[in-house]
């Protein structure tokens, strides 16, 4: 009873946040709505006893990805009028894509269900159950090659992203910090000994 009340509460906020994310005109507000949506989906995962996924969702998406996202969105000076200029031109294409997606969802939800069994509410696990351990045990045994493959693909993506932004610019001044640290007093200060002079 209490669990379903909590579920509907989080689900309602999740849907509200998702709608807000699409409809809000300010990109920073949209990003914040997305953060709220991530939070609520994490809470729903917690209700499913998938605590590892829930916490990692918050850690990775809320704690890192969305921070960088906000960072970029805040720096860009988004011109809303320019963004809405092409709306009427692209509206038919958008409508077609939306219709295709709606038909697909309809297909999945309604047509496929004819043959598929309904899923019951998952049975609660015993108290000693650790979702993190269970996931780790499966990932590093049964699915170790797909897991490592995914890691390598991500690494390639990281390297590619960095190499895209690395370029040598002319006239760029750089500091060599180890040389800066090694500087001693003798390198910079020269004591000059000279005789006292007297005005004749």
């Amino acid at each position, binding site marked *: 009873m209490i669990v379903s009340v909590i579920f509907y509460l989080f689900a309602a906020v999740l849907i509200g946040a998702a709608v807000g994310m699409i409809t809000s005109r300010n990109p920073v507000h949209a990003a914040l709505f997305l*953060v709220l949506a991530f939070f609520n989906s994490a809470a729903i995962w917690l209700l499913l006893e998938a605590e590892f996924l829930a916490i*990692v969702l918050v*850690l990775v998406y809320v*704690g*890192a990805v969305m*921070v960088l996202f906000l*960072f970029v969105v805040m720096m860009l000076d988004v011109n809303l009028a320019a963004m809405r200029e092409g709306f009427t031109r692209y509206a038919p294409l958008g409508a077609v894509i939306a219709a295709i997606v709606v038909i697909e969802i309809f297909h999945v939800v309604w047509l496929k269900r004819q043959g598929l069994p309904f899923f019951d509410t998952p049975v609660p696990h015993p108290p000693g159950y650790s979702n*993190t*351990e269970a996931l780790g045990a499966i990932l590093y045994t049964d699915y170790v090659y797909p897991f490592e493959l995914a890691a390598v693909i991500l690494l390639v993506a990281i390297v590619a992203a960095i190499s895209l932004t690395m370029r040598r610019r002319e006239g760029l001044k750089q500091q060599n*910090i180890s040389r800066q640290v090694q500087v001693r007093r003798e390198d910079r200060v020269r004591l000059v000994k000279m005789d006292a002079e007297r005005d004749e």
Partner: protein
Amino acid sequence: MRSFFDAIWQFLPPTPQSVMSTFSVISVVVVVLILSVAYLTLAERKVIGYMQNRIGPNRVGFRGLLQPIADVLKLLIKEIIIPRRANRFLFVIAPLLSIIPAFATWAVIPVSDSFVLADIDAGLLYVLALTSMGVYGVILAGWATNSKYAFLGAMRSAAQIVAYEIAMGFALVGVLMAGGSLNLGKIVEAQAGGLLSWFWLPLLPLFLVYFISGVAETNRAPFDVAEGESEIVAGFHVEYSGTAFAVFFLAEYANMILISALATTFFLGGWLSPFEGVPALGETFLAAPGFIWFALKVSFFLFCFLWFRATFPRYRYDQIMRLGWKVFIPITILWIGVEGVMAALEIGPWSS
């Protein structure tokens, strides 16, 4: 009177009973935290004062002991000014976003062998997730203020926190490899056996990286470029006043206490006694584990925070980034490799 309350208590069904008792325990923890924050501000001014050959506040109350109370009252009765072009909602909610994670993380920190609010399995992950949330308060404050100085402070802070969070996370990977669990209580228990078996020694590089990253994460000196009063006035909270400013202040100090408590739990054996297993002491209170050891270790780290502030000049921004990305992350990755090899070969204190 007493029996009257007992009767009411017995009359309640079990769910409200447990909710009420949990709430009362939580409020005790929060009140203790807020009081610690208040007296940490006094300690900071006193410690830095003596380090600079001054006395520090000594007018309000006996030797200045009521100074934090006076400061809080002053901040509470001041006006909260909201800039005209600011985003009102985000401007007001930003301080709350920075204080909520600082308090919520305490739910999983074991302060003694018998007391922890929520003894959950994924405690370390929960800590990482919540500490990464604190940056939102800073960025939103900077953006919602609609001021260039505040925005610069927010950008600096966001880049810095993202950089140091990675080093921090990698340092904690080493801790969970050595502790063999994500549960903070079990990590502490894995360090049992006296001063030399705590994780600070086998994981020394990770310990240093963790604590320095912790200082950077809390935007404290020498990493306090987000405030940078000499260049960008006060950074992200330049337009905040009164209670809203006080909440930011509270969050900063609560985060300091939090980082100290986490460093204690992960590297200095939490509630364990340093003299555990010393034969001469036997079964005396010195060898017994308890809350007092936890409090002493946390106080040591807090003193370090104040000490750094009085000692080091502020880092230059590009050097902060270099330290985080090019020095700390390679160190942590290297040490995780060393640890993995040692554990696989079952050598020394690394294999448990």
